[in-house]
């Protein structure tokens, strides 16, 4: 077990060092920030639609989605880093040297959490500057917990794909499903106001439960919390198995 954590710390330490020496590590926050500006700035009147009853207002409504997008894309970008490490030969040497290879997955996940903390803080500061209220008080930490779990799930997904394909050309394979999951959710209006095929897709999308509960935390009226945390836990469990499967494939590939 000692080897597991030693490897994890070593991998995480290297990744975090790479982050701090390259400002591009904040790139996952750029698109969420842009979408936040475009949606929260341009669509404020959507909050006036009959039946739109989110107490914290439209800016806060969009902030939660932008935050979850930032942390999820942080996970995807970690997948890109892993793919890059395979391409440049580092990952192969790492797998030869690591006494416990499962620690590699944990290490990348820990580093991804550091990145998500930075990008999430950036999005939050930006939202606060633009007038987002936090009316939920300590419930805000519920939102943060869900963001952390979303990051872990996205990282494990990205890690699994990156280890299976071991090339940076895997970028779209990592990015596109995450993007789809984020958009096939109640992005612009609450679930109750969605209609047609998107309502069906959003109801089937596990991310919807997380998004709706996260918004309820920010509004100080937590709802469907158990469903959201249970969904997150199941996602993490399934995607951890997926990442381990990817690792095994990478081991077999040599």
């Amino acid at each position: 077990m000692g080897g597991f954590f030693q490897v994890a710390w070593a991998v995480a330490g290297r990744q975090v060092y790479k982050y701090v020496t390259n400002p591009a590590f904040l790139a996952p926050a750029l698109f969420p920030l842009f979408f936040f500006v475009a949606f929260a700035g341009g669509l404020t009147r959507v909050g006036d639609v009959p039946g739109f009853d989110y107490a914290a207002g439209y800016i806060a409504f969009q902030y939660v989605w932008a935050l979850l997008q930032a942390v999820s894309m942080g996970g995807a970008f970690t997948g890109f880093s892993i793919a890059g490490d395979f391409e440049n030969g580092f990952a192969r040497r790492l797998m030869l040297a690591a006494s416990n290879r499962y620690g590699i997955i944990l290490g990348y996940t820990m580093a991804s959490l550091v990145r998500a903390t930075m990008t999430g803080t950036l999005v939050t500061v930006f939202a606060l500057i633009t007038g987002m209220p936090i009316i939920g008080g300590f419930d805000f930490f519920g939102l943060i917990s869900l963001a952390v779990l979303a990051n872990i799930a996205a990282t494990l997904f990205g890690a699994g794909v990156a280890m299976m394909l071991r090339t940076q050309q895997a970028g779209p394979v990592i990015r596109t499903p995450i993007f789809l999951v984020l958009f096939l959710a109640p992005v612009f209006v609450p679930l109750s106001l969605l209609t047609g095929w998107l309502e069906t897709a959003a109801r089937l999308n596990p991310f919807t439960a997380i998004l709706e509960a996260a918004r309820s935390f920010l509004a100080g009226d937590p709802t469907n919390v158990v469903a959201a945390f249970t969904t997150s836990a199941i996602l993490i469990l399934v995607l951890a198995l997926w990442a381990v499967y990817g690792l095994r494939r990478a081991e077999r590939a040599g």
Partner: protein
Amino acid sequence: MGGASLLTQVAALARRSTVRTMRQPAVIISALLFPMMFFSINASGLDAASKIPGFPTDSYLDFAFAFPLIQASLFGAVTAGADLARDIESGFFDRLSLTPMRPVALLGGMLAGVVALGLLQGVVFLTIGLLMGVNISSGVGGMFVIVLLTVLVALGFGGIGAILAIRTGSVEAVESAFPLFFVVIFLSSINLPRNLIEQDWFRFVATINPISYLVEGIRSLVITGWDPQALALGFGFALAIVVVAIGGAAASLRTRVV
């Protein structure tokens, strides 16, 4: 090739540009699939916005139809710009400049490829839009005008892509401009009419953003019918972008060749 007219040179390079694009199914699929996907998600997700008092139509699907056309033009511009940058990176451009072929033919060929892709996108999106239930108030004549305006927009964006490609000579630089284009599209009246944008700063940005007028020109044909003012502004801004972008690209080309 030496004795060939400029038109023949442009035609040869246009054919090369089009064949190259057609041989990359991923490019074609992305250029068609992603704009329709975003359109579909936006139209369904923002359907409730049509209930805002003063919203110009009761169908957000109709309102949003300009989105895939404008976004597709952007995809085309980035693709064409990246192809031109690749020609510069690979040395093809330099080898070409040693031949009697006029450099402007390379630009013309590339832009012809952009026009071909824009035409394909316009026709495909119009067909899919009609199948999805978009109602074009201006009728069949309006559909032709929509495709024409889409092609003009694609040409203008293609010119901007060419400037980036010629100035930087880097595929990566052209492709990294994509998010910037995307931002400019979203900071317009693409999602809501300008009079319904509540935030003053956003409404101001949307008003000075030429993309708003391109969007509103296409949108007027879909939801209003024949609106001379919206069309004049739409075509006026589209032509202005074409002139400025192609002029800029030609000037950049002279600098690079010299």
